[in-house]
């Protein structure tokens, strides 16, 4: 509140008409813009996105670039981050790994956040047995904790191919779609809980009662009048869910349950390099870990700042 009034005073001093009303989004944007740490983190995220996009054009056939004469070379001018067991450039692998990670993060959340919001809103608004059923559904899912849930679903997906022999063929075992779906289907619980609680509060507000009083249909109230007030939760969950999805992809790939063979991924790099430190090859491991550390740090901090800007009630102390 202080920050807003300060700005109004400033504008008044300059002789302009103060802009009093400011939407939630504009307010959040102004808060974030003033926050230097958030701007730096956002820049890092944008940088990763750019790297992810250009790397697939720059090194389209990295996976086949075998060069056994130059295998396991330490960093040099020619290979800035050294080479791996097959003589492929680690720098290129790391950059392509960013593409894999970010795609997984975005795709998993594109599935899980809308799913969680939809189920949460329906449960919170309609109540009674619909609520009971959805609560039962997510309690069941949540009772298999963390990584075991993901391992279990990837295990089940191993031999599954959806829509085989059609243009929409999806290999859930070895392909990327398996990871998107596994992560998406298994990580909507948090969003659903938050949204459900919020809808139960909003449902009792006067404007909803007014809409009901003039005879608006319930489904219209839910999607036109309540949903827009939940969007900020979706955005916060999306940005924080990226961290979870990227970490999960790395762990799954490390265990051999993630991306298929030949797909560059930080998890595969860490898995390939896990015994390398003993023989003094540090570059593959440290590039994967370093790349992952920076993006996770940026996403974590940016997600926290975004939450603070969008939802002042949730602000961390």
């Amino acid at each position, binding site marked *: 509140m202080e920050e807003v009034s300060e700005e109004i005073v400033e504008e008044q001093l300059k002789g302009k008409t103060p802009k009093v009303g400011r939407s939630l989004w504009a307010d959040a944007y102004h808060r974030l813009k003033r926050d230097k740490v958030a701007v730096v983190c956002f820049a890092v995220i944008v940088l990763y996105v750019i790297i992810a996009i250009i790397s697939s054009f720059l090194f389209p056939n990295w996976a086949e670039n075998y060069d056994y004469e130059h295998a396991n070379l330490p960093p040099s001018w020619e290979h800035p981050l050294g080479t791996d067991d097959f003589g492929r450039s680690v720098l290129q692998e790391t950059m392509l790994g960013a593409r894999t990670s970010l795609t997984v993060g975005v795709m998993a959340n594109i599935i899980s956040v809308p799913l969680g919001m939809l189920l949460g809103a329906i449960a919170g608004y309609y109540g009674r047995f619909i609520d009971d059923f959805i609560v*039962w*559904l997510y*309690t*069941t*899912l949540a*009772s*298999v*904790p963390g*990584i*075991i849930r993901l*391992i*279990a*679903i990837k*295990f*089940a*997906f*191993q*031999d*599954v191919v959806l829509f085989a022999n059609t243009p929409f063929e999806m290999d859930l075992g070895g392909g990327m779609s398996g990871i998107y779906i596994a992560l998406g289907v298994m990580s909507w619980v948090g969003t659903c809980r938050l949204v459900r609680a919020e809808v139960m509060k909003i449902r009792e507000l006067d404007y909803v009662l007014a809409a009901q009083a003039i005879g608006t249909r319930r489904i219209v109230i839910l999607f036109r009048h309540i949903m827009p007030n939940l969007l900020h939760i979706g955005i916060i969950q999306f940005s924080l869910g990226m961290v979870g999805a990227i*970490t999960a992809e*790395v*762990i799954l790939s*490390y*265990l*051999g*349950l993630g991306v298929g063979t030949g797909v560059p991924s930080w*998890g595969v790099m*860490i898995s390939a*390099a*896990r015994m390398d*430190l*003993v023989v003094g090859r540090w570059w593959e*491991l440290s590039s994967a*870990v370093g790349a*992952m*550390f920076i993006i*996770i*740090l940026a996403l*974590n*901090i940016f997600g926290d700042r975004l939450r603070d800007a969008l939802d002042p009630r949730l602000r*961390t*102390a």
Partner: protein
Amino acid sequence: MAAFVIRRIIQSIFTIFGVMLLTFVLFRLVAGDVSAQYVNPHLGREARITWLERHGLNKPLIVNSKYPFWKKKFWDTQFFNHFVDSITFRVRSYQTNELLTDIILKRGKYSLALTVPIMAIGWLLAMVISSIVAYYRDSWIDRVGVFLSVLGMCIPYLAYMIIGQWFMFQVAPTSAWGLGHRYNIYVPIMIAVIAGLGSSVRFYRTIILDETNRDYVRTALAKGVPLTGVMFKHILKNCMLPILTSLVVYIPFLIMGSLLLEQFFGIPGLGDLMLSSINARDVPIVSGLTFLVAVLYTGALLLTDILYAVFDPRIRLR
């Protein structure tokens, strides 16, 4: 009170039934036929069918509609066998034909030896550090503490493991892997404690600071209770509720151990079993362990809810 407890118990039974359904759908319906892993395809159809028969996988899926429902045969199906097997844990591994209960008894102790110290030391350290950090709120100690815990949170778990083992290998090569010495378990414990410290310190600090802003703290200070007294007598006591809940979340992992750590350090616990069964496509073991974790988790949540209701009337009356 009784109504609340009964309602929670019924809810938990539904949840456990749901998990049984989930494991059935995932491991029997979605995962499909795993016989190719155990029967050489060159042996032909006969061998495969014998294998399926031995493990009861050629029975009808949900009900045997050839018989009326009062006959025992009607219920002798994959679904109901899975139901009974899940609850009794009397399944046999496809690989070794051992009973799951025997395997749990044999391997569980290694997991416990790993996870109980992790939980105890981790909790104690996180409590101490977060109390110190919260006590010096807004000073440089606080800022450095928060900064370090955010950094610690963002370092991948795998990096802790690999670098920790490499470090141990430099110091004492024989202690870096396996259970040759009793003290080999110290390294994984230390790694897990350090890796988990960042997020718990940050979480506990937020809870403690939330509590510090309450009215009763101001009243206590106004009455002249010294600051340390308020901190340790009033605030910490009230913080225990959320902190205990966060510990309950860890209970299933007490038995399951730490999946990645056990595999990486060659500790023959249940987490290691889970991962090797995944690779061998040993469905009964994977399904049984998943169910075990879910039951433990649900039971622990039920217990905390009942204990809360006993100790905190605000929850009981809702």
